[in-house]
């Protein structure tokens, strides 16, 4: 409950209705100091709504949030002092110069006047803004805008950073830069970032929350989530010794192999070849059996390898209604 326990966020049964639409349904989670938490979910899952509630921009229909032990709904101003927030798409004042904007936010975010210049210099350097300080924000590229957004969120050195889609619309190089920055920040701060891009959370976060249709469907470390989808899949490409293979016949033969749970037709590798993705039962490795079957039927094996089920699969399974047993 208190800050001493290292509990930065304590969100309890957050529910938010917009008219008849339920954006969040009974969402509860806790975040400890020093965690980099990835908020993952398809578009429209309620990520932005959840973040807006954390920052006090929206009030939950039911439930409560404490930030550093401060109830956000009752003492919003106090809670906001502890939070740095980058809203989605980095809305900024386009007509302002970068330096003026940062000075303005430093004022509003209560950086003591004596420290302002030093803070501005530190942040400008950290976010790589040195050469654009004198430019109008409206002229900046998307990458620089995002960095200005980050800079204003960090200007008061908050304990908690909330970043809504910090890398959306950036090019791959910029994405890597922002990721590095977030990791760097995560060393001494708590960071919550939302995204629908999976490699992003895998690369930066040490904990992942997956939300779908306003509900929490998973809460775990990235490694654990990747392993969660049981079993693995086998990629197989076959070719006939002579003539053509009959897909239905081959599929049936493969389906008959013990340990194979599911056979899916996939892309081949050119004319005369057939591609398949086979799903193992949990714990099994059916590669030997598959190879044996190929020998028996005298198929030529062009490719046979095992793919670990990725976080992506877990994500799909959890958010496309293919519910997993156990934790929901």
């Amino acid at each position, binding site marked *: 409950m208190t800050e001493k326990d290292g509990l930065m966020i304590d969100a309890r049964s957050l529910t938010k209705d917009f008219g008849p639409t339920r954006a969040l349904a009974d969402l509860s989670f806790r975040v400890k100091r020093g965690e980099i938490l990835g908020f993952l979910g398809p578009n429209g899952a309620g990520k932005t709504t959840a973040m807006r509630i954390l920052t006090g921009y929206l009030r939950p229909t039911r439930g409560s949030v404490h930030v550093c032990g401060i109830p956000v709904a009752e003492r919003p101003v106090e809670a906001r002092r502890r*939070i740095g927030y980058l809203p989605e798409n980095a809305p900024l004042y386009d007509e302002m110069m970068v330096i003026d904007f940062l000075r303005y936010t430093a004022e509003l975010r209560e950086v003591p006047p004596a420290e302002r210049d030093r803070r501005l210099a530190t942040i400008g350097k950290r976010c790589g803004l040195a050469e654009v300080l004198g430019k109008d924000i409206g002229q900046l590229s998307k990458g620089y805008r995002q960095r200005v957004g980050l800079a204003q969120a960090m200007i008061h050195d908050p304990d908690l950073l909330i970043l809504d889609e910090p890398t959306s619309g950036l090019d791959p190089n910029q994405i890597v830069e922002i990721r590095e920055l977030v990791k760097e920040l995560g060393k001494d701060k708590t960071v919550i970032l939302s995204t629908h891009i999976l490699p992003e959370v895998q690369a930066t976060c040490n904990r992942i929350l997956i939300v779908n249709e306003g509900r929490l469907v998973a809460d775990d470390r990235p490694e654990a989530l990747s392993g969660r989808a049981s079993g693995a899949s086998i990629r197989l490409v076959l070719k006939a010794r002579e003539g053509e293979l009959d897909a239905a016949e081959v599929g049936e033969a493969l389906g008959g192999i013990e340990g194979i749970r599911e056979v899916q037709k996939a892309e081949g590798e050119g004319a005369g070849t057939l591609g398949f993705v086979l799903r193992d039962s949990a714990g099994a490795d059916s590669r030997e059996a598959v190879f044996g079957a190929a020998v028996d039927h005298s198929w030529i094996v062009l490719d046979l390898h095992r793919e670990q089920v990725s976080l992506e699969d877990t994500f799909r399974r959890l958010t496309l209604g293919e519910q997993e047993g156990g934790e929901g």
Partner: protein
Amino acid sequence: MTAKTIAIARREFRALFDSPVAYIVIVAFLLVTGWMFFSTLFLRERADLRVLFTPSLFSPAMLLLIFAPAISMRAVAEERKSGTIELLTSMPVRDWEVVLGKFLADFALTAAAVLSTLVYAITVACIGDLDWGPVISGYLGMLLFAASLLAIGLMCSSWTDNQIVAFIVALLIGACLYVISWLQFFVPDFIAPLVDYVSLSSHLSNMARGVLDTRDLLYYFTLIGGALFIAERSMAHQHA
């Protein structure tokens, strides 16, 4: 008033000068008042300042009726449209500090336009004897009149993310309050004083005559306070 209110006011004020609005308002105001002042000066050979303050169909007050909504329409609506409102409200700032800061910025610009016409008063004072009493009360009336319109404009701006809508609604409210005093001859006698009291222009007329009455001051302060309060409430409502 807090440091944050002043920081917000300062930013808003600069934003007004980043757009052409501020320059248009000041130049147009000077031109129209100048024309009115000099036409009475040369045609009627009278240096009369009261003409500047007395509300009519063609007077500086009429100009404010249009300019005030134009200045204040962007206050909240623009932040809603661009999404910066979310940024602003994620900072440790109270809604009333935002509303007050924006109001002060709009008022500073309008006051600059109104007070720029002091050059005419000084001209008159140089030519002959100027009775400063009615001039001061006239300026005070004009500033309060403008502040009321700005507060109404800010209130309308807080209701929408569309600046045009904010402008039109504010213009309508202002115009109704401006012309309602003309109705007092057509309504039953017992309503007439009420109609006269709610009218923006009748209070301005009083002050233009050099009459400083607490009832007039009270009227303007109530209107300004009420409109800003509603604006603050609708800012708070967005969190719902």
